[in-house]
């Protein structure tokens, strides 16, 4: 019983720490988003609240809470409140299966730095991501506003379309690892055998789908302000709007962590053995956790970088890219990965497949597209 108690307390405090890290990262993402946007547009950005504007997220939060909390007269009240709650809930649920580090031993108890180590880890991620659309869909419908409804419907169709390509790119990873557990996927990548070397095409597909699932530019059509005013959150104000925006930043951080887990070795970093020998296993594990969070933050930066670089897609372009672009490429990637696993030459076949694919596109472009124009 004593053992159970200590494990339970350790797990609970670990989940609490992850929760706090996620919220902190999400809050400061808003600050860095504005700073990066300012840098790219040759401005200064927020610099009034505290040194370098470092207290800006606090000021934003106070502003959000002080605004009038408004519920439209003809809206469905309960569903209107439920929308942002569901968005936050599903955004926070994914981190349960991300392995943040190897085992830590405190006293005589050893436990994993992972919320739950289930043998269906990656399916959990996939399931929670597919539920993420409910918050937007319900919130948009309950607002009783046609722009909100259009935004919600766009979000739903976009998420369903890009989930397919995302699932297919994950299948290629599963074929190589032979397990659905995120822990096993990370352990297969230790000592520099990162999946990005074996799966360059799968990673690009997954990255594009992650942008679409997080509703980030260039795929932020559900909140496209030139067409839909504010999209699904047109009628929202105060902290309910804040929850929608916050959920987006949490999603960015968590999808960065998932991408680091699947393709960039998770908590692996160069020189694990050296650090373990010098400082002990616990220190090495904690540095590994730092490495994973660092990788996730690098992805958050890429999300922002792309947002302030690329313009928004048109809606038919978005659907065309998802259905007739990414899904066939992902299928091709699955076949190539199967070939690589059969021949036991995964890096060679992976990059060979990439070259064949690019050559095929060039030939297609020369033969078919030119003919159409002429």
């Amino acid at each position: 019983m004593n053992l159970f108690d200590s494990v339970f307390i350790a797990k609970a405090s670990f989940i609490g720490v992850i929760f706090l890290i996620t919220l902190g990262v999400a809050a400061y993402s808003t600050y860095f988003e504005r700073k990066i946007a300012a840098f790219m547009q040759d401005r200064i950005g927020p610099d009034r609240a505290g040194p370098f504007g470092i207290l800006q997220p606090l000021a934003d939060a106070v502003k959000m809470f002080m605004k009038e909390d408004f519920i439209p007269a003809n809206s469905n009240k309960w569903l209107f409140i439920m929308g942002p709650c569901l968005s936050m809930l599903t955004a926070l649920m994914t981190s349960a299966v991300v392995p943040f580090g190897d085992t830590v031993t405190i006293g005589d108890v050893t436990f994993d730095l992972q919320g739950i180590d289930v043998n269906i880890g990656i399916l959990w991620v996939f399931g929670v991501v597919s539920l993420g659309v409910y918050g937007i869909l319900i919130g948009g419908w309950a607002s009783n506003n046609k722009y909100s409804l259009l935004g919600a419907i766009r979000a739903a169709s976009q998420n369903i379309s890009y989930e397919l390509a995302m699932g297919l790119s994950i299948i290629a990873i599963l074929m190589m690892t032979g397990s659905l557990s995120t822990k096993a996927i990370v352990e297969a990548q230790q000592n520099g055998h990162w999946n990005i070397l074996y799966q360059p095409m799968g990673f690009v597909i997954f990255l594009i789908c992650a942008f679409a699932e997080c509703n980030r530019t260039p795929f932020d059509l559900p909140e496209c302000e030139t067409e839909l005013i504010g999209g699904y959150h047109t009628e929202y104000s105060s902290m309910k709007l804040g929850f929608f925006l916050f959920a987006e930043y949490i999603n960015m951080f968590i999808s960065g962590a998932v991408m680091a887990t699947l393709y960039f070795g998770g908590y692996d970093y160069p020189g694990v053995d050296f650090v373990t020998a010098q400082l002990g296993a616990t220190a090495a594990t904690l540095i590994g956790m730092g490495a994973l969070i660092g990788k996730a933050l690098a992805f958050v930066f890429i999300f922002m970088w792309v947002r302030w670089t690329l313009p928004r897609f048109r809606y038919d372009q978005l659907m065309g890219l998802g259905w007739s672009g990414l899904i066939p490429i992902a299928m091709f990637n699955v076949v190539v990965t199967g070939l690589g696993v059969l021949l036991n030459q995964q890096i060679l076949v992976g990059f060979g497949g990439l070259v064949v694919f690019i050559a095929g596109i060039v030939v297609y472009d020369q033969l078919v597209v030119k003919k159409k124009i002429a």
Partner: protein
Amino acid sequence: MEISNIWYFLSGLTLLSALMVVLAKNPIHSVLYLVFTFFCISGHYVLLNAQFLMAVNIIVYAGAIMVLFLFVIMMFDLRKNQPESKSNLTKLAGSVVAGSLLVVLIALVRQNNFMTPQAEGFISQTGMVENLGKVLYSEYLLPFELVSILFFVAMVGAVLLGKREAGERNF
């Protein structure tokens, strides 16, 4: 907490939300209760140690099919498309049909004493994804492949129905 207490709580919740699917006036509420019912059923799968089935149930039903349901219902103008209330004869016929179906089901359950699995010899790992995959790809290979052909045919049919014919209006 006893595991059977969790089972009773979950079953009550499942029945309650399933009833609310039928009783709710607003179709959107019905769909949301149905989603909740699927979650409760997934909870039962977890109690049976069938985690793979739990995840797939959520991904396929709650994540994809119910989103499409919501999608379609939201497209309707609910105030215009209220179904007209049925006549008393229709209501009577409906309750007779439902009642006789209930009688048949009860008779069926009483006739067959369903096999109750033995707690001793039961392998708790049956529902794990590795064992499930091995059974699917060895014992049940032919049905599995037939089902995938069925899905493929359905997919091709959907594409064919959704395809715009030459000269048709571009929305």
